[in-house]
């Protein structure tokens, strides 16, 4: 009984310590963010690393998602005799949901894993401790620029995804399925609202960007410093980010509709 109690106490204390450490990490991350903007060079590098490097996967995925939307849209809407609405249908789906969500999931798989494993490896090879010994704060020098780079990249990638997706839908609906070109675009104009739809989608992609980047750098920074630990951190990044993004998506949608 006494053993059990002391065990429980030990576990609770460990949990609080870990929990406290992660709170502290996130707090320092956010506190150091404004000042990091003073070194734009480091951030530009990271926008390139996370953003530009993810462009190909984002554009290819966007194209195919858009084309499927075109096919399904025409098929479904023709049952109501209103296949010209396919432009509105694809536009709203992409801007409000698929753009931010699918981009965030792809971002977690491409950029998030890269961030987590890069920082985790720096931890495992003592590069982070080495920096601390050179009186350089690794959170400031390594973690924050990567976090900001991710936050900047996500909305940009989501808008690329949406634009390419619309193009894909247009190709399928207008060129292949013969929907009227003028109708495709003109129906979209009055039906897509700047604030309710476009800004809402941008807000989502920004929030997902913060969540995905934060989780990736957190997992990497706190990885167990072994090869196995870095691998596990990378996997956790994808799993946790995916769940968090989908839950956040529901919450934001519920509160803004």
């Amino acid at each position, binding site marked *: 009984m006494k053993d059990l109690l002391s065990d429980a106490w*030990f576990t609770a204390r460990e949990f609080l310590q870990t929990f406290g450490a992660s709170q502290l990490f996130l707090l320092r991350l956010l506190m150091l963010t404004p000042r990091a903007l003073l070194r734009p060079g480091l951030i530009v590098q990271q926008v390139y690393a996370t953003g530009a490097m993810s462009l190909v996967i984002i554009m290819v995925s966007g194209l195919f998602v858009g084309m499927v939307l075109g096919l399904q849209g025409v098929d479904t809407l023709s049952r109501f005799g209103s296949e010209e609405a396919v432009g509105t249908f694809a536009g709203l789906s992409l801007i409000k949901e698929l753009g931010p969500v699918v981009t965030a999931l792809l971002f977690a798989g491409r950029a998030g894993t890269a961030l987590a494993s890069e920082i985790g*490896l*720096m931890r495992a*090879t*003592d*590069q982070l*401790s*080495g*920096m*601390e*010994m*050179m*009186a*350089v*704060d690794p959170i400031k*020098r390594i973690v924050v620029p990567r976090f900001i780079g991710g936050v900047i990249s996500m909305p940009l990638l989501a808008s690329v995804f949406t634009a390419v997706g619309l193009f894909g839908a247009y190709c399928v609906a207008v060129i292949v399925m013969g929907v009227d070109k003028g109708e495709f675009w003109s129906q979209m104009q009055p039906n897509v609202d700047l604030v309710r739809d476009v800004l809402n989608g941008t807000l989502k992609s920004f929030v997902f960007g913060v969540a995905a980047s934060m989780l990736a750098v957190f997992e990497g920074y706190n990885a167990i410093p072994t090869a196995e630990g870095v691998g596990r951190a990378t996997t956790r990044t994808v799993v946790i980010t995916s769940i968090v993004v989908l839950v956040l998506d529901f919450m934001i949608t519920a509160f803004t509709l």
Partner: protein
Amino acid sequence: MFGFHRKASHAQAAPESENIVEIRGLWYSRGSKRIFEDVDIDIRRGDVTAIMGPSGTGKTTLLRLITGQLVPDRGTIVVDGKDISRLSRRQLYELRKDMGMLFQNGALLTDLNVFENVAFPLREHTDLPERLIRHIVLIKLHAVGLRGAWSLMPAELSGGMARRVALARAMAMDPSMLIYDEPFGGLDPISMGVIVRLVRRMNDALGISSIVVSHDVDEISAVADRSYLISDGHVAGYGTPTELEQNRNDVVRQFMTGMADGPVPFHYPGPDYSEQLLTRAGR
């Protein structure tokens, strides 16, 4: 080149104590494992001090405690007159600019080349013009014999070269204390000889203090002024290489002569051998 100014001003500020590091009553555990129990250690200014001990006794942990990366459970660690567990993060970083540390594997930044690795602390902490940074970096690389390797990436270096680059980087800010974690481990005899001589030469030429963690008894005896032998959470022996050689303590004798079994057992604790062979559950 900047270190000399700093040292001159130190000397005026306060009468320097003889020890650059003073550890008193240090207790430290990791989880439920006790690593140090009531340890006292003095590191003398200007000396090369060795910390020896079997693997896993906590030598690296001790270095992390001295440099403030870990905080002791009990006891005090005074470095250059300052109790490091009472320093703010900023004061700690200020103190660390005066220490250079070599990690077991070099810990070079893998995405920067040799030149940029050595330049890294200068770029982070000073606003020196590029020309001056170039001079300093080349001087430091020359001192470790790797001026010609400035453009290589860390992945292209051998173990001994990586450690020499790390040494050049540790010296970039002209620290008054250099700390080496197992600088001789896994090196061929020639590289090992190079590092042994570098440790001694840096210490004497720059007038700094050095702490060297190692379990290579012969190398360490050649280079250290004084050694501490740590075993099982305690200081088992202390003294000059000759004094340790003559120490009658069993742990010290076992370590210095490299006997497999003694007070430090060869076998990890376990059940009786024959019993374990005969029971199926013992697997």
